[in-house]
């Protein structure tokens, strides 16, 4: 792509007016600009996306990108980070993408504390496939695949991440932009697996803006190093009930991460091959 230093490509944006994705795009652009000013090189950033409305961000950002498959941001990002630990790898994924099709990867990435950042565009609905329920849709949700209402309770994804060993667990909201930027920045700078569950609206299929606006609040982060406090914060809102919704970094700790520092110099490859064959005699 072009040598232009701008962070946006010329690609025409096709998100619906009012979509929460704009705020996420704007926030990440602004965070990367700040990081560049502080001496980080943008060529060290790799963006990995799944499939869904969120994923168009790969086309809009003038950054290295891997536009992957539905549900498969995390294994791709893990491979990139393992292959080159100097790269800063950021996954953008949707809630259907990340919490349904690719949920196993999320749990295992948190468990192995791979040093990547996962940002979930959680609008609690499938947009691109026209409004079906996702793992975070509320009980009773009526979509085209559940016309009589959904008979499942949503996943409390914050609880799930805490239980999986994630070392950075947070929630943000697209209509609290300064807060959203701060959380993105902290997540990217965190060493280890960092997760941001971003509540956003789907302007066409599930517009919850007014409902969220009344309930979200920026919670204190003074106890973010304590697991018990994080668990309590995760249970204040279960993605279903009518309750106040805390935003912020619920949990952040330092733990051994992957990839580990590589040591030693690799031997000449054909020399090694010869010695392996020799030792089999």
């Amino acid at each position: 792509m072009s040598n232009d230093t701008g962070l946006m490509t010329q690609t025409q944006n096709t998100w619906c007016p009012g979509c929460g994705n704009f705020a996420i795009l704007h926030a990440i652009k602004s965070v990367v600009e700040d990081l560049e000013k502080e001496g980080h090189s943008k060529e060290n950033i790799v963006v990995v996306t799944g499939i869904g409305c969120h994923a168009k961000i790969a086309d809009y950002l003038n950054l290295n990108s891997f536009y992957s498959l539905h549900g498969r941001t995390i294994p791709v990002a893990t491979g990139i980070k393992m292959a080159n630990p100097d790269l800063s790898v950021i996954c953008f994924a949707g809630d259907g993408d990340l919490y349904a099709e690719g949920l196993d990867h999320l749990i295992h990435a948190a468990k192995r504390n791979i040093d990547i950042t996962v940002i979930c565009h959680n609008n609690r609905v499938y947009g691109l496939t026209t409004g079906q329920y996702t793992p975070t849709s509320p009980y009773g949700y009526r979509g085209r695949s559940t016309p009589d209402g959904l008979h499942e309770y949503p996943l409390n994804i914050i609880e799930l991440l805490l239980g999986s060993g994630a070392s950075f667990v947070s929630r943000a909201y697209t209509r609290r932009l300064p807060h959203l930027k701060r959380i993105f920045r902290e997540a990217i700078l965190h060493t280890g697996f960092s997760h941001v569950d971003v509540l956003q609206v789907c302007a066409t299929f599930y517009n919850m803006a007014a409902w969220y606006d009344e309930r979200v609040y920026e919670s204190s982060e003074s106890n973010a190093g304590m697991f018990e406090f994080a668990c309590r914060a995760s249970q204040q809102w279960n993605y279903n009930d009518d309750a106040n919704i805390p935003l912020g970094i619920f949990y952040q700790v330092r733990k051994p991460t992957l990839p580990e520092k590589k040591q030693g110099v690799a031997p000449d490859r054909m020399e090694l091959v010869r010695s392996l064959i020799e030792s089999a005699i």
Partner: protein
Amino acid sequence: MRYLLSEAENLIEYSVLIGGKAGDGIAQAGQLISSLFSELGYHVYQYTDYPSLIRGGHNFCIIRAAEGPVGAHRSGIDFILALDQKTPDLHAQDLNADGTIIFDSSRVKASGQGINIPDILNLHQGLPIMGNTAIIGAFCRCIGIPWDRVSVVLGKKLQKESEKNLDIAREAYGRVKQCTDVTACPGGQPRPLLSGNEWIGIGLLAGGIDAYIAYPMTPSSGILHYLASIAGKAGIDVIHPESEIAVILMALGYSYAGKKVAVGTSGGGFCLMTEGLSLSGMAELPVVIVLSQRGGPSTGLPTYTSQSDLLFACHAGQGEFPRLVVAPGSVDEAYFWSAQAVQIAWQYQIPALILSDKTLSEGIFTSVSLPEIPAPIIPDDYASPYMRYADMPDGISPPLSPPVPGEVIKVNSYAHDLFGITTEEPEVVVEMIEKRLRKSLHLASALDRPGAVCIGGISDAPVAILCWGSVRGVCLEVAQSAGLRVISPIVMVPFPALEFKSAMKGVLKMILVEDSTTGQLSQIIAREGYHADAMILRYDGRPFSVEELYEKIRGHLK
């Protein structure tokens, strides 16, 4: 039935069967016996037969050692080593007229030479598993190998408690009498002896892999275990993630980051990898996939062999994209083509599949003559501003990996433009499809060259055995004795039409031998206008012995 074949050619050869319960260390014991014969200068092939369980059951190995190259076992056995009663019960009928049974007299009733293994183990405070060392000691005495020579091999191969093992073997060695005189192979020299999986692993290393990623699945796991055991020394990453889906996607992450990477699995795992395979084709991210076949469909026969995934490998994945599929038929080829698969995948930026099966992967073989690995092709330099999918005459866009200051590197699973940005514009879609198509055409002409099809046996005989993969070993031996030609394609996709045509010159009758129910290779050659006159198909998961196949072939020659 041995007279049919080897006596005419007057070659020295021996077949040994060792059997016992799962947990008796039968596979390891088989490897020790193989090592002994290799040390004596023989070519060796070892077949291991085991059910899918951890303890109990009946396991056995057949070790065949001969003056010339061997890739199959025989029906007749010269020496049976029995650690359980099932061994003589099931296999004594296969004992040759001058054969001998050596057995643990505490567990087995048989005629031959018995040793009381618990007694020997008690004497030296050995663990029950060391019973396998005892019976090998007895076997060595029986076949007349001097103790000095035995102790060298055992000392080299038994890493754990080698002193105690040697004492136990020595004790057993002293308790039996010599029954024959196996001498060093005339003109022979010790050769490297490894499983097919290990040969594939070394080939992948020779091809330049930086990483190997796999989820355990029989019969491919040997590659994972082998490469994990030498990862530190080799300076490669070896990773076992949560699923085969994660395996292939992680591998594509490595590939994007500029590292050479291979993955390994069997049919079920390959099913899960197909979305990643198609992504590799679309995003033009190279990856090598080792597909070691076992009996299917579904979970099937996990520890037994099959060749029923050939067409699946050739067609897997949605959409149309170039790929390489190779099927080595010997360990020399497994080494060479594993290295080639890595080099070709990275040269053309395509997925490359190496087809193996249980017989090749878990069989243990001495190499015959390992080919030189050619130097890798250095890719063209890129122009700035960088376009990941620049439309080059041969379809191969110069590769680049992050970080590169001033350049942005985008890969995409969607139809995309030259920069890697999603598009639905028909002209651009067509341009990119035709770019990938040109890679296919270049690949096909580059690979249709000598070596793509193996010709063996009597190379101008009018009757030919058609085969591929591990089955070639047994076909070559039968063809040599029966005066037949062997035609065995190694490159399956893109199919080497000219090489195959030249191999077929003068063939009047063709018999396909395959471990499947439908003879899948016949469908591939049908596209080239050929057909198999007869098919010998086997689908019980067991490889043919030389005699079994000879009888089947003879039925078609009348």
